[in-house]
């Protein structure tokens, strides 16, 4: 029966490369799945790590118990005149160094030379556990990031999540036979299916179309437009909304970013405000009556603060049909100074002292010129 043997090669090798014996193993880690890891032992020696979905704490404990005291001896021997009956796992002693045959490449000829090894990747067997700064930083960056990819017959899911002191964030997507859905922190943000695309949240685009390139709205970094190509374009009908202004109808309406507005026709149903003045369908109204010194009153003599009106019975008629270009006020009003070429009035108050020595009668009189 074949046995596991120790073979003494003495010096029948072309070359030997030996590294220091590994320190004892003191810890076993079994990665059962992405979330579950079981450990046994401490960090006083080397750690053996494996992936095993069927692993358990009991298995880790048993493995460590058997592994305690085991030391791995790295060894490379080239062109060793090794007995062809030797097998993987046999022990081999080369120039006083004893190890196992765990790799072997053989050349079949009259000598049957073999390169044998108990391989290892490490240059130095560090006894002091040191993690370089770069590795430490890398570990810190990815330490709490987990990724998973699930592939099933009817579904593919991918998810990346990260734990941080401020909480957990995640992003994922799922593809099935009906739709492709994207999630952020567990909430749906985008879904594509046969009926189209649904997006929840912000959309940012620096180019593209809403509709088609021939009939739709063009999206650029600074504008969205259809037909009209820019703020100064008066050749095309359509609409343009950009950072420099808005225009539509071959320039029939235009408002630029400096506040200049032009329109062929304009109908307002509310207030048009110019500086401190409001113009409405019923009145030209002063916002600061006292600044102008007016005390407007209606037909009954009631004060109408800040009101100029064309209504009958009170106010001021700037363009009465019977007297074009004149102001006619049927009732009395008070003011400090009137600058004009001519005042026609039926009566006057004697308090208008600054009219000087001119005599004004009760009939219609002409003041000034």
């Amino acid at each position, binding site marked *: 029966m074949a046995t596991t043997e120790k073979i003494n090669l003495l010096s029948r090798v072309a070359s030997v490369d030996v590294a220091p014996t590994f320190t004892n193993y003191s810890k076993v880690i079994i990665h059962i799945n992405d979330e579950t890891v079981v450990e046994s032992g401490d960090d006083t020696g080397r750690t053996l790590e*494996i992936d095993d979905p069927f692993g358990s704490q009991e298995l880790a404990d048993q493995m460590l118990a058997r592994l305690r005291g085991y030391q791995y001896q790295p060894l490379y021997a080239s062109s060793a005149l090794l007995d062809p009956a030797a097998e993987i796992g046999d022990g081999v002693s080369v120039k006083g160094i004893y190890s196992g045959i765990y790799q072997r490449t053989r050349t079949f000829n009259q000598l049957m030379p073999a390169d044998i090894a108990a391989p290892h990747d490490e240059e130095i067997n560090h006894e002091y556990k040191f993690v370089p700064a770069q590795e430490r930083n890398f570990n810190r960056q990815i330490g709490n990031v987990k990724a998973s990819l699930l592939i099933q017959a009817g579904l593919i899911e991918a998810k990346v999540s990260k734990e941080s002191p401020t909480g957990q964030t995640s992003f994922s997507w799922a593809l099935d036979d009906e739709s492709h859905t994207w999630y952020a922190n567990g909430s749906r943000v985008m879904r594509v299916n046969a009926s189209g695309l649904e997006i929840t949240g912000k959309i940012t685009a620096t180019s593209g179309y809403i509709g088609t390139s021939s009939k739709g709205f063009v999206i650029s970094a600074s504008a969205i437009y259809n037909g009209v190509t820019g703020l100064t374009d008066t050749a095309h009908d359509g609409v343009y909304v950009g950072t420099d202004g808005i225009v539509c109808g071959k320039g029939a309406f235009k408002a630029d970013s400096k506040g200049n507005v032009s329109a062929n026709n304009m109908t307002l149903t509310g207030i048009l405000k110019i500086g401190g003045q409001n113009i409405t369908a019923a009145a030209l109204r002063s916002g600061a009556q006292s600044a102008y010194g007016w005390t407007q009153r209606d037909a009954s003599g009631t004060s109408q603060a800040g009101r100029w009106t064309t209504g009958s019975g009170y106010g001021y008629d700037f363009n009465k049909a019977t007297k074009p270009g004149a102001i006619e006020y049927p009732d009395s009003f008070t003011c400090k100074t009137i600058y004009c070429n001519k005042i026609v009035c039926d009566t006057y108050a004697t308090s208008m002292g600054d009219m000087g020595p001119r005599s004004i009668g009760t009939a219609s009189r002409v003041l000034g010129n």
Partner: protein
Amino acid sequence: MQDTSPLYRQILADPNHYFEVSVVIGESGDLVTERGDTILFGGTAILVARSGPDSGFYGSQIFSLKTSSQMFGNDPEIGRAIAQEIELQMLQPSGDLPPMAQIVPYVRACTDTEQSEWLQQGVFYIDTRETTVSYDGLQILTLHGFDAMLMTEQEYSSTSIDWPATDINVVREIASKIGVTIDSRTEELMTGGYTYPLPTGYTLREMLGYIAAAYLGCFIITETGQLRLVSLLELPSDTALLVDSIGDHITFGGDRIKVG
């Protein structure tokens, strides 16, 4: 260590010993000359069974032959199941080699007057083949192959055992699925009695790896084509024993002699 005869060990102790190599490919072939030309009998090729190394390719028919095997990668690991590889350059045989034909190399120890038994050196299956022509017109066939471990790269899709199953029963079923037997040392080693649920979605190779890890070892295919679990802890202790000039143990009444 493979079993060997006293004659083999005796020849190996002779400083003038050398080795002969034979390669058996497929199950049968035609009788050829050393140049590979088919020997005809009445115009018909002579069929020969390639049932053993004595009827295999040897000597100048083989240009180069290498095998490589490993328990794990470039660092000590457990839970691996790695296939051995073979690279063979030889005279193009006259017959057709069927797809995935078996390649079995053998070696024996010789002196000018004696020859040992043939030692099997693996069982491989052709993966790729390439034919080239040498400067003197010889057709050279280059074959690359793997052992049966590569066949474990399939899902555990069917089973004939009860689950949960013990580790050794799982290994037996895997061996059966890939058409090999189990090395007796494996049965002796696997006494843990670990049980596993039906490993749906896992490959045979992955299952071998998980089972091997529990025993701190790896699975390999031996030189005789058997499935074997090799544990790191199997390594014989480093006892200093008296050896002869080639390293063989010197015995006294059958017992090895401990030094110092």
